[in-house]
């Protein structure tokens, strides 16, 4: 309890310090309205890890973004597939995702924070080591939502929830989403 109280005080001191001299408009009016940005993002749960990049255009006035994505599992994951009659196959799976998406961001008053909601349509595919057999592939819709910390108009740090079904047999789909973005133009 004591530790929780200390953590809360530290968090608010950090936010207060961060907000000092800060313009509470989520975006500066003088900035260009349309900007390119690049994101490094992670969808994590205890049994899987997906690393990806997102590149897109954001309309700062309307808080809307449209983007392309490429994600991959940065290692070969051991997966079990049931083939009937108590027979299982164990493969080492590589997994990739290519997609497009859109995001809406809503800034909170008097804090450098915003809420975000994102929909990411993506095509997933992969391969198994040592065999011609292929893992499941196809289209997915990945919803994500959470909070974004405005890094003084240089970009965002986002933390939230994502539902990512990799189509891998019996793999947990609920994930923690962590992403860091930076503007490439428009600042």
């Amino acid at each position, binding site marked *: 309890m004591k530790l929780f109280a200390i953590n809360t005080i530290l968090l608010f001191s950090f936010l207060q310090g961060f907000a000092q001299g800060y313009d509470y408009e989520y975006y500066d009016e003088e900035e260009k309205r349309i900007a390119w940005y690049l994101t490094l993002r992670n969808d994590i749960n205890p049994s899987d890890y997906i690393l990806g990049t997102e590149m897109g255009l954001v309309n700062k006035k309307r808080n809307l973004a449209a983007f392309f994505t490429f994600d991959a599992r940065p290692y*070969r994951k*051991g*997966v*079990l597939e049931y083939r009937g009659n*108590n*027979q*299982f*196959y*164990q*493969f*080492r799976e590589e997994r990739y995702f290519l997609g497009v998406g859109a995001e809406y961001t809503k800034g909170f008053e008097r804090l450098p924070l915003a809420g975000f909601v994102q929909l990411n349509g993506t095509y997933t595919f992969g391969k*198994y*080591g*040592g*065999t*011609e057999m292929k893992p499941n592939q196809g289209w997915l819709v990945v919803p994500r939502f959470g909070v974004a910390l405005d890094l003084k108009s240089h970009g965002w740090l986002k933390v939230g929830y994502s539902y990512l079904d990799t189509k891998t047999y019996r793999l947990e789909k609920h994930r923690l989403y962590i992403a860091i973005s930076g503007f490439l133009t428009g600042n």
Partner: protein
Amino acid sequence: MKQATLILFLFSILVFSCDDDCICDDGPFYADMKVKVTINDDNPDVFLTVFDGKMESQDTLIAEWVNESTVFYEMEAERYYSAVVVYQDGNRQITAIDGRKMRTNEDDCGCDYAEGMTLNLRLVNP
């Protein structure tokens, strides 16, 4: 000017001395292929099969009983190898498959050499 000449002289010595010392082999190149398997009470020894290419090719290179959790084989580079082990896990039968290409790389002299690789056939949840 004097300094530039000295640097050029030292650089040329470095370049030519490296070329003089380098004697590249044309290959073929060989390296260790590590195969990791699970050895436990249900599977004190397992039958390992290594194929040239993917397992569907059925081009068998090695087929033997193994009772150690890590085994090494010397293999030729720039070829794809796959390996299969069948485990018993209670009532379940698990066929573990893995495969990858053994690649070559270049050393500082620009000579090719084979890079070792690992096939992982360990049970993911034994």
